[in-house]
């Protein structure tokens, strides 16, 4: 081996490992693009604006610090959702008794969420029906199991594909479907019960 070749080999051994560029290198762009969605998901899951804001910021901070582990085998939003889900799980584990949520002045009830329903030109009657439906769904979602609630929100609020939900949650596709079936069964049962009560 020539001296030049040996020197090249030594230099290549001593060089630091090259870092693969990731979308998270431009964290400002990632935050700008995905923060509304991450915040919305956390807000719908936790129903606490302060906590949702804090966990949103922590989601992007963790994405930045662990960006080297992003392999690109899923979309950016799936990866961010996975981080956000872990944060929600950690939070609910350490606050099993929900004390902090009870004392929160930011907790939102069904009537408040229904007031955000956009219905600029609808009739008063249809507006009333829609408000009632949203309130019912809001209450029903709060009574779902944490996993069912997560999958329900990812599908029907974030409009993620089932495969994308499976990737973000790490749950098999068939189980994701089963959770959605059960969640929708609860919704239908609640609607039926309300209809019977009204009659």
């Amino acid at each position, binding site marked *: 081996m020539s001296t030049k070749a040996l020197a090249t080999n030594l230099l290549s051994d001593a060089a630091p490992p090259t870092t693969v560029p990731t979308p998270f290198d431009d964290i400002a762009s990632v935050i700008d693009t995905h923060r509304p969605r991450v915040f919305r998901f956390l807000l719908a899951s936790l129903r606490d604006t302060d906590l949702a804001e*804090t966990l949103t910021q922590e989601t*992007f901070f963790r994405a930045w*610090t662990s960006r080297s582990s992003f392999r690109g085998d899923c979309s950016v939003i799936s990866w961010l959702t996975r981080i956000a889900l872990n944060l929600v799980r950690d939070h609910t584990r350490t606050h099993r008794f929900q004390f902090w949520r009870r004392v929160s002045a930011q907790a939102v009830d069904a009537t408040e969420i229904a007031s955000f329903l956009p219905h600029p030109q609808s009739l008063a009657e249809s507006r009333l029906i829609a408000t009632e439906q*949203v309130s019912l769904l809001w209450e029903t979602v709060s009574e779902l199991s944490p996993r069912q609630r997560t999958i329900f929100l990812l599908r029907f609020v974030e409009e993620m594909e089932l495969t994308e939900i499976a990737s973000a949650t790490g749950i098999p596709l068939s189980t994701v479907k089963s959770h959605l079936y059960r969640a929708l069964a609860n919704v*239908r049962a609640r609607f039926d019960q309300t209809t019977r009560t009204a009659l």
Partner: protein
Amino acid sequence: MSHQNHLTHEQLCDLLLANSQLSEPQAQHLRVCSDCAAEYASLRESLTSFRSATVAWASHASANRSWSSPAQLISTRPSRWSSIAGRLSAQPVLWASAAVLLLAATLPFTLHRHQTVAVAPKAPAQVQQTDRVGDEALLEEVDQTLSSSVPTPMEPLADPTAGRSSQIDSTPRKN
């Protein structure tokens, strides 16, 4: 799929989960079965309204937050508890309750400690006084024993007949 057989729950869910085109047999059923069509329309409408309300609410909430800039975000770790601590500091009733609970919890321990401290010095003093008297008596006894010329075990036994011998001698024997 006949008109009499309604859609199963799974079939209805599959319709709701379908993004674009409905499968032809199920779409055909919805055209002829008013019950299933009404239920499907009601659920679809409710889910759409729920999404619209949630998105509007989140947009409104997001606009009212003071978000850190990306540079601030990656330079300082966001504290998860800062907002919770801020909320708690605005709850004087909670702080007062916590103080009362803390006082109630520590009061029995404080009283118990005072009682123990008050009683504790007396007991050793009594024990020391008793021990001192006992020790002095024992030492005195030992001194007396040592100072005697003949140890007590070596002293001659007292004559058990000392009192009666004179009477015997004084009585003349007659045979």
